């Protein structure tokens, strides 16, 4: 006989129209949820299912009938009778400009292929602003053996700040400092990580969409030209340390663990790990040397 299982309170359904197609969503869903249900590919950069929507990148905007401005799909909740256009000229123009502004000032070469696909789809040509544009180019920060910070790749999506803060780790080692173009991710008083509140959980790396935050192992292999994702396998297993049972994804190249992640949809971790789970794997490899 099955034991009772708590499944939450019942929610009512809300009908909306997206690009002329009707869909019913549970109350509290976002326009992005509805788009995904209809398999309408929607670009996102600052959005992640495990983080609170923060609405900063504006690349997911859609046109909502009756609304003066475009609305962010990632955070706007569905309301009965909404009529939404995801591919109007206004939406395409806005998404193109967002991608162009970001890509003209930031090195987005390590973003996922999906991001490059959106660039192509919206005809984003960052080079049209000329070669004299301001960029965030700067040296890579390497101040510890576990991970590096390359803020020339940072689009200020805030995901790392959220993962370090209330959405997961609650360590608050980083925030956004400065205003306007000078806004940047910073530790307290811009000190190096070893002098900051950082506890090296690497949950910021886990959510970074641009490769600005990266395992030092990956950074070093890329510098040496040996990083090759086509030769990497990903295996799910369980962390060898405490008894919480965090699911790990071991990224292995040439029989060596080169990176550790955790699935976002895992009920134990929600994609987050601690310093031991994320970086504590070296002991199995040292036996080979």
């Amino acid at each position: 006989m099955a034991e009772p299982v708590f499944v939450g309170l019942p929610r009512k359904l809300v009908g909306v129209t997206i690009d002329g197609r009707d869909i019913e969503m549970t109350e509290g869903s976002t326009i992005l949820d509805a788009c995904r249900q209809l398999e309408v590919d929607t670009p996102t950069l600052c959005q992640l299912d495990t983080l609170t929507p923060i609405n900063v990148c504006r690349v997911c905007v859609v046109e909502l009938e009756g609304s003066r401005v475009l609305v962010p799909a990632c955070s706007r909740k569905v309301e009965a009778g909404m009529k939404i256009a995801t591919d109007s000229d206004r939406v395409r123009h806005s998404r193109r400009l967002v991608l162009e502004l970001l890509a003209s000032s930031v090195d987005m070469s390590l973003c996922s292929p999906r991001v490059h696909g959106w660039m192509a789809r919206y005809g984003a040509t960052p080079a049209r602003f000329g070669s004299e544009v301001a960029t965030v180019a700067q040296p890579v920060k390497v101040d510890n053996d576990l991970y590096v910070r390359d803020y020339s790749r940072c689009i200020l999506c805030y995901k790392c700040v959220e993962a370090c803060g209330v959405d997961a780790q609650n360590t608050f080692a980083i925030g956004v400092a400065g205003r306007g173009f000078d806004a940047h991710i910073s530790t307290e008083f811009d000190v190096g990580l070893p002098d900051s509140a950082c506890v090296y959980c690497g949950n910021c790396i886990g959510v970074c969409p641009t490769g600005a935050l990266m395992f030092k192992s990956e950074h070093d292999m890329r510098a040496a030209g040996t990083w090759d994702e086509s030769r990497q396998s990903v295996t799910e297993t369980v962390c060898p340390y405490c008894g919480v049972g965090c699911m790990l994804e071991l990224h292995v190249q040439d029989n060596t663990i080169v990176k550790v992640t955790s699935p976002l949809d895992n009920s134990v971790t929600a994609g987050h790990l601690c310093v031991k789970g994320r970086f504590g794997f070296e002991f199995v490899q040292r036996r080979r040397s």
Partner: protein
Amino acid sequence: MFGAGGGTSSYREAEETNLIILWGSNARETHPIFFHHVLRGVRNGARLVAVDPRRTSSAEWADVWLGIDVGSDIALANAMAREIIHAGLADKEFIARATTGYEEFERCVEAYTLERAEAETGVPAAAISEVALDYARAERGMICWTLGITEHHNAVDNVLALINLALLTGKVGRYGCGLNPLRGQNNVQGGGDMGAIPARLPGFQDLEDPAIHEKFARAWSGADFPSKKGWHLSEMFEAMDRGDLRSVYIVGENPARSEADQTRAVRLLSGLDHLVVQDIFLTQTAELAHVVLPAAAGWAESEGTVTNSERRVQRVRRALEPPPGARDDIDIIGELAQRLGCGWGRPTAEQVWDECRRLSPMHAGMAYRRLDELGGLQWPCPDESHPGTQFLHARLWKEPAEGAPAPFHAVEHDPPVDRLTEEFPIRLTTGRRLDSFNTGVQSGGYTSPLRKGEALLISPEDGKRIDVEDGEAVRASSRRGSVEVRVRYERSLRPGLAFMTLHFPDQVSTNVLTIDATDPKSGTAEFKASAIRIDKLTRVPAT
């Protein structure tokens, strides 16, 4: 608990409860991802109470920190129970329908007045009363603990005292309520599940029950195996001491460093006729062995399952080829069986698991296929249509209650064995830090920027009183031995309390100081409570 050897709740319930008591657990550092669930609960409005002699990084998140004296947990729990009873907040209906032994328990806790508890625990009476009444009044409330409860000479009594509180207030068997030991290693729970404890067969089935014994004997082709329970680890060391245990086969454990009173542990292991150690490293224990069997790492180089602290059985998978010569545990055991004349063949991990599923009803529904698809399953899971069990003991709330009632246990306060005296005036307690693990065999493999090496942490007040500077090397001595170690001032410690870890045995052998007074039921040593003295190195040590 009440016949089921595992935590009653799911992690998710910590997010949707009203009150969480972390009792003897610094989960922020020792179970960081469980603490994420706790923090979500706190963000959702739950109150958090930390019961810990140290003002840990977990306690910093708590609404209330009860900074108890080491080893006074039962006095605190019993006084809380008395407060709840006197305030009329005992759940009389639940007690009547689902428990036994209440009258004796009530008589026992009546002696634990707030005044007495304040004297025994060092916690102000008003704080004890506040937490007791908060817990009793909360619609949902959870108690979670770790080694702060179990590494004592009366570990089982400590656990029983916490169970009493949940029974008294009807806080078990409902969503968001429960009793949860957070497991310290990735398969401590699974080891128990599989019967790697003296009195049990897989699925916590009683080895000494003739019907169970016969069921297994039939499945194992009439094999002749013991029908009386064996020894737990501490009893094995006693048997070595008596000379009754002469050959030992150790798999994946480093007792030469992890045992309390390490000098004695090494002497006994060294005196064996035959010691076999199967490990992924040449540990300090393996160095004492006559035969070392190099093993593959269970979590990354072989297939199998582990069970976590919410009873979730999850798959581990082979991601790496093991180093040359290192073999899978199953292969090694099969090969040994072959040499001993038992033809077990070469089963895969899945075949071994399927045999377990046939013999252990609580695992029966957990086919590999389902574990893969569902990200693991929580036991009990009796058949392949069962979704797994989110929380245990809902049966106690059925009308009428099903199964055996849950017993109260009257337990009395009994202070730590290693008494504080003028000669040994400081209470040393041990534990873990965020970036390290046990004897450092695994965590020593990576370079953590947080790691500062071993030190004896003491309060600045104690430092000034005994005239040692922050960073000064001193001699720390207990009744069993002494070590040289650097002092570090630590503001989270109260005067009279010191803290060390076991993470760096090559720097400081902390377990030279600890006492091997063990709980008679669980066999766990009192790592949490040694009495030490601290001497400046210029002086002649007192011992």
